[in-house]
């Protein structure tokens, strides 16, 4: 069953590559959609055999592959990875659905998309350190291509930056895993805290910090975030959706699964510094977001801020905080995907994402009223307003962390307040006001926007609407997700019994 989650996208990707390139793009897209729908169905079907009361890995599948080096093909799912697998399946589908009019190399594009989705599934499901690294690396190149080939004007710079950063990240993680296996004398790269049992503290610290930096680049946490805003601004909308919604979660997943899960002994030693790091990252991301003019950069910096909460939760390692971190991953995935979709619609209709230029898009006759409505919903969710996914996530994280790290938690709450500031600026500038009026220093020709925007077809907003509904759904009925992840996060935090 789990292997199906890998096989479907991989086979789909290969099949697309083998198709004749003369096939019309719409046909390619249709084939990709079929595979992705299938993948989503399988992912949802996982909920049936999945036993929420069992916190450990389940539904294992394994066969030995290259056992001489400890690389076994072993998959398993637990309450931590299942929500992320679901998000991955859903968002890849969304991003394929919202890919329209791809004129350039559609074959490669869709197969890369499928490949990423499969690799991400593999990374989430891998029950072996090396297997994780392989999938983690496998996702880099397709994403690099997606940015480098289908990106904006400055795509070469952005994609190279992305590649260098994430390659370093991958390298650090691999080095840490190999080092871990080497010093512990383990032969099978199992994911178990027993690996670090006998190691001296210094060795553990070195390995842990290497891993933290590796995942910190991917998450990304300040100051390793510089690749993200560039990558987002240059990537096309569907790629941004994937990047923000799914790929960043690889970092946070790794943080919790490997950093937190493998080093229970030394974790308490560095947890206080991590909490401070989290607070800095949150404030840094939020403050930098306030100063942005480009909507996409703003949303990208908001990701830096919001991912900081996950680090805070991991540092506290209480059951509530860890559950909150799963919520935060899921809700950030959905919300940021929603925001990028909407920014994408605005960009397509107006040709700009500049907040100094955009005005009055909420205009019911000539503007983008429905997009605006969804945008208000999205930014409010991101700002953590109750009734939407962001609130319960943040509440759980803060509630779980405040006793362990009061100051860092309070700073993070301030960061959550700042989120409201910059997103309100976004809505106020771009959507409120009068449509025809543009300010003086206007880079757009004639100093005026085209005031008769093309209407947004309903099918363009369907993916955004679906995401918006799920944002509200999670916000109003969070118990479902909690049931999936509760035992897993409990188990993980028992590892850290003393803390919190």
């Amino acid at each position: 069953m789990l292997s199906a989650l890998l096989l479907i996208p991989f086979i789909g990707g290969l099949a697309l590559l083998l198709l004749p390139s003369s096939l019309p793009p719409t046909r390619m897209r249709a084939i990709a959609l079929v595979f992705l729908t299938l993948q989503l169905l399988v992912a949802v079907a996982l909920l049936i055999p999945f036993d929420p009361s069992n916190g450990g890995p389940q539904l294992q599948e394994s066969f030995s592959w290259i056992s001489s080096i400890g690389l076994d093909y072993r998959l398993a799912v637990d309450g931590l990875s299942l929500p992320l697998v679901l998000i991955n399946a859903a968002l890849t589908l969304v991003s394929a659905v919202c890919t329209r009019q791809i004129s350039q190399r559609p074959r490669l594009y869709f197969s890369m998309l499928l490949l990423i989705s499969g690799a991400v599934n593999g990374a989430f499901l891998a029950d072996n350190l090396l297997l994780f690294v392989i999938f983690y690396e496998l996702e880099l190149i397709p994403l690099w291509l997606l940015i480098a080939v289908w990106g904006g004007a400055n795509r070469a710079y952005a994609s190279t930056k992305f590649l260098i950063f994430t390659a370093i990240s991958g390298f650090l993680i691999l080095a840490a895993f190999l080092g871990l296996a080497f010093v512990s004398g383990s032969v099978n790269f199992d994911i178990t805290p027993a690996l670090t049992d006998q190691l001296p503290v210094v060795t553990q610290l070195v390995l842990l910090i290497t891993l933290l930096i590796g995942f910190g680049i991917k998450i990304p946490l300040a100051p390793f975030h510089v690749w993200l805003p560039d990558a987002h601004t240059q990537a096309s909308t569907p790629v941004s959706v994937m990047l923000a919604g799914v790929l960043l979660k690889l970092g946070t997943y790794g943080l919790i699964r490997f950093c937190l899960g493998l080093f229970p002994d030394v974790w308490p030693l560095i947890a206080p510094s991590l909490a401070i790091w989290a607070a800095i990252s949150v404030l840094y991301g939020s403050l930098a977001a306030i100063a942005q003019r480009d909507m996409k950069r703003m949303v990208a910096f908001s990701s830096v801020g919001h991912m900081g909460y996950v680090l805070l939760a991991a540092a506290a390692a209480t059951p509530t905080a860890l559950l909150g971190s799963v919520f935060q991953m899921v809700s950030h995935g959905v919300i940021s995907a929603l925001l990028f979709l909407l920014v994408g619609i605005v960009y397509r209709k107006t040709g700009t994402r500049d907040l100094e230029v955009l005005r009055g898009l909420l205009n019911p006759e000539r503007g983008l009223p429905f997009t605006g409505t969804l945008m208000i919903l999205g930014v409010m969710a991101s700002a953590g307003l109750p009734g939407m996914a962001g609130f319960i996530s943040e509440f759980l994280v803060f509630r779980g962390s405040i006793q362990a790290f009061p100051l860092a938690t309070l700073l993070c709450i301030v960061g959550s307040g700042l989120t409201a500031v910059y997103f309100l600026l976004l809505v106020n500038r771009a959507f409120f006001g009068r449509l025809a009026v543009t300010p003086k220093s206007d880079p757009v020709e004639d100093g005026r926007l085209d005031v008769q925007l093309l209407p947004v077809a309903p099918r363009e907003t369907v993916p955004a609407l679906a995401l918006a509904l799920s944002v509200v759904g999670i916000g109003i009925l969070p118990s479902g997700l909690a049931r999936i992840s509760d035992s897993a996060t409990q188990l993980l935090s028992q590892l850290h019994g003393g803390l919190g």
Partner: protein
Amino acid sequence: MLLALPWATGLVKRNGPRPAAYFNLLLTMAGVIHGSVLLSWVEQNGAVLLEWPWFNAAGLELNIGFDLTLTNLAALEFVTIMSLLGQFFALGYLDKEWSLARFYALLGFFEGAMAGVVLSSNLFLSYFVLEMLTLSTYLLVGFWYAQPLVVTAARDAFLTKRVGDVLLLMSLVALSAWAGSLDFEDLYTWVGQVRVDGSISPLLETLIALGLIAGPMGKCAQFPMHLWLDEAMEGPNPASILRNSAVVTCGALVLLKVMPLLQLSPVAIDVLLIIGTISALGGALVAISQVDIKRAFSYGTTSYLGLVFIAIAMQQPVVAVLLLFAHGLAKALIFMSVGSVIATTNCQDITELGGLGPRMPATTTSYLVASAGLTGLLPLGCFWCFGLLIDGLNSSAPWLVPVVLITNGLTAFNLVRVFRQVFLDTPHPKTRRTPEVNWFMALPMVSLAVLVLLVPLVFRSIYSTPSLDTVSSSSVSLVVLSGALGALAGSLVPLDKFWSRSVLKPLRTVQDLLAYDFYTERFYRSTIVAFVGFIARMTDAFDRQVVNRLVNRIGSASLVSAEGLKLAVSGQTQSYVLTVLLAIVLLLSGLIWWRVA
């Protein structure tokens, strides 16, 4: 169920404006009737607590709970009736508005949130719905989003309230962690326990208590978070009616519910008193120098809520509730009559209005009734509240008595001043042809006027203790005296243009100071806003100049090779695949070699 009713209206938004409005009205009416049935039921059978589990995981239990007590239900009745009247009023006021349906959908949302606030039995739910209230206020204020002033007003309303909410969230999170439960009842017992055993540090106690104050402070538009209410007057008037009466009441009710928790910290009580005093006096002073007819009264709201804060800080919850109701009704009536004036004349500047009295009898009468209800001069609602308040303060904190009296006097002054200018005076160009408003607006206005007149009777029937008869005659005479003085001053003060912005430098300075609200807005702009903006720009510059550049430097070596890669970007797919495969093969063979060796 009661809560879900108004919310459901969002669904019919698309079916054309009018049906949505009628549907919303019907639902609100159903809410009022349901509420009153419930009220009489609870009166006979005692309070009921309804609770549903909402979220239960990781040792955290969050419930949706409604506490159906007499006070809460009475407040609910107040909210729904206000909403009903306001919505009816809006039918007339927003007659030609193209997005009437959106207005009603938002109003329904708004009303649902308020109903949630007054009924909620735990702090979590209170916070939840308070934020909904913040959101709906933002959307309602921003209703006419094409106007620049509205945009800033909506932003300020949201952010000010959000500051309060974030502070409240901090307290909420802390309380949830240390007290273990967020039900008000549990929290009360917890506070009692903490006061005995002192299990948490005094600093923490103080911070928690201050955070708890901050939320309601923003909602009740208290100094220094009062700016939004004034700016929010840019929004549609029917929403202003609700904001000035019902919303601030909701905020104060939350404060009432957390009042026992404030026992944690004497500092918090002092802060509450100081804020209340400053708001009461400052609001009243600023109000008398406004020329915008809506703003003249919105500052009055700040001022009265300041008095409510004082009452709460002095542990007089009953007086606080009575004052809230009396003020809410009267203030709503004032805003209806003001709304009628604006709807008829399309003008909000009182210096351009005049002589409306004979032309708009119903509006004028309503204004007079509301003024009487608002000031302590005639024995209507606020009169008794002031009496009770002063009686209570006499024994505990006599230095606060003048605050109440001065506020009363200034309010009377303000009301009389505006009355003279708008309703008496000679007709101005804009007020020559001013017919009375249509019945959509007149009906709710007149019914509310009747309600305001009935307030003392309602007080008498609901609250037997403290009885209104116990108010000492000295307090009564003080109140009457202050009201009469204010009214007298208001009727004597010259209203001509020369006087309204005096040529005398010192006087003009004072007038300007008040007219510009102690320059609060400018103060904020040059401090907090500038500060956050500065930090944000610094962070951004740091990000671009330092972090990014550093990274680029470090990466420049690899960038050289990356240049080579860049050229290969649109090259053959096969080569990429080959690279990946090659890397994997190399890695694996390396590993095998290491294992074997």
